[in-house]
């Protein structure tokens, strides 16, 4: 086709129509639902930047998180920008009462898009789904304690499991042991 001679007018016409195509095409892609996964009631909804440019996060978040995972588990470096707990604390939604909604819940941030992309995660079998310090995932200062029990270390009210460990501390007597063997 290099031999074909186009008049300057033709060239301009082709150029314009190509430019139009690109513009219109770009417009359609933009109008399609990319993004919009940030949920209302999350900290992220009040910000306009993720930890990396948004399109990069869409494409590569799994790589970043996986890298962070090894950095934390093997090298002991925590709380850096790709930490999973960071994603949770910024992206988890809250209901009208301010109670956090689990981030992997149906339609929530980590679930909605994955459902669409047919990705299943088991990360939240283990990882907390609500931000640290909220709901049951609390880091709060204990009420002043009068007992000799360790107080300063308890940053979450001890749950009522009064005999905790006591059973383990006691050597079951012979009768009890035999009874357990029979069970």
């Amino acid at each position: 086709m290099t031999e074909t001679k186009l008049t300057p007018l033709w060239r301009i016409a082709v150029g314009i129509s190509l430019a139009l195509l690109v513009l219109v095409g770009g417009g359609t892609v933009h109008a399609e639902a990319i993004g919009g996964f940030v949920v209302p009631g999350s900290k992220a909804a009040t910000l306009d930047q993720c930890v990396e440019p948004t399109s990069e996060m869409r494409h590569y978040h799994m790589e970043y998180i996986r890298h962070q995972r090894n950095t934390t588990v093997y090298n002991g470096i925590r709380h850096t920008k790709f930490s999973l707990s960071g994603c949770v604390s910024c992206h988890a939604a809250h209901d009208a009462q301010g109670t956090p909604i689990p981030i992997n819940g149906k339609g929530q941030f980590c679930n909605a898009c994955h459902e669409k992309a047919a990705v299943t995660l088991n990360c939240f079998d283990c990882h907390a789904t609500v931000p640290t310090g909220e709901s049951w995932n609390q880091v709060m200062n204990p009420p002043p304690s009068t007992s000799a029990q360790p107080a300063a270390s308890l940053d979450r009210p001890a749950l009522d499991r009064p005999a905790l460990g006591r059973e383990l501390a006691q050597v079951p007597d012979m009768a009890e042991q035999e009874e357990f063997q029979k069970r």
Partner: protein
Amino acid sequence: MSEHKQQPDLKQSPEQPARRDFVAKAAAGVATAVIAPGVILHTAAVAAPRTTPVTDIKRWGMLIDTAKCADGCTACVEACEHENGLDLQDEPEGVKPLKWDNQRATWIRKVKIRDNMSGRMTNLPLMCQHCEHPPCVNVCPTGASFKRADGIVMVDRHTCIGCRYCMMACPYKARSFIHEQVVKKLTRAPRGQGCVESCNLCVHRLDNGEENTACAEACQQSGHGAIIFGDLNAPHGPLREALREVDSRQIREDLELNTGVRYAGI
């Protein structure tokens, strides 16, 4: 001390501080002041999250003085459970209480030893001994059971397949298996069905610059002070000072695992 073959170079005399100890102190920038022999003040300002990978300059360990460990006291167990979210485990329906107590994940157990001849009772907390040569690491088929550079033996639960070989291999019965789905888990202690876990010397605290475990802290606060936590590689650190003072042993010394947790009075 001659019978303790595996003691981490305790013979290094205090007059010749090891270079790496100096490096460790300089690197950490920890301001410590020796007030009186054995009393060391750490400034609170050291609590900063680490930004460089852990190294083998430090090796974390403990000395547990069984003479100070009180019968019936469970302060260390409770503090551990609280710190690591172990108290958030729910008892499954219809499980017998004793069976559940045996099966639920526990990182520290209070153990009572009785000498049958004399009848003498000894109390001690038993947890992962953080061996230098950990059998649990040797048997792991996926490499999930590993020893971190600073001597902490732990499980990478992202690669753990739940085969439980490590539980069989551990001479201390230190590991637990999570049998049930866990509903509530703390951010600092993820936990879920199908993986093995054990004491990690409160690794999240250490990485954030705090140099004490929940159990040692609770034991000090309860007034018993039976657990001393510290760096086995620092000849002048509180742990090595304490190890120089009292006669200590490793449990199952015969296995030559060079445990990081030492016991006095057994």
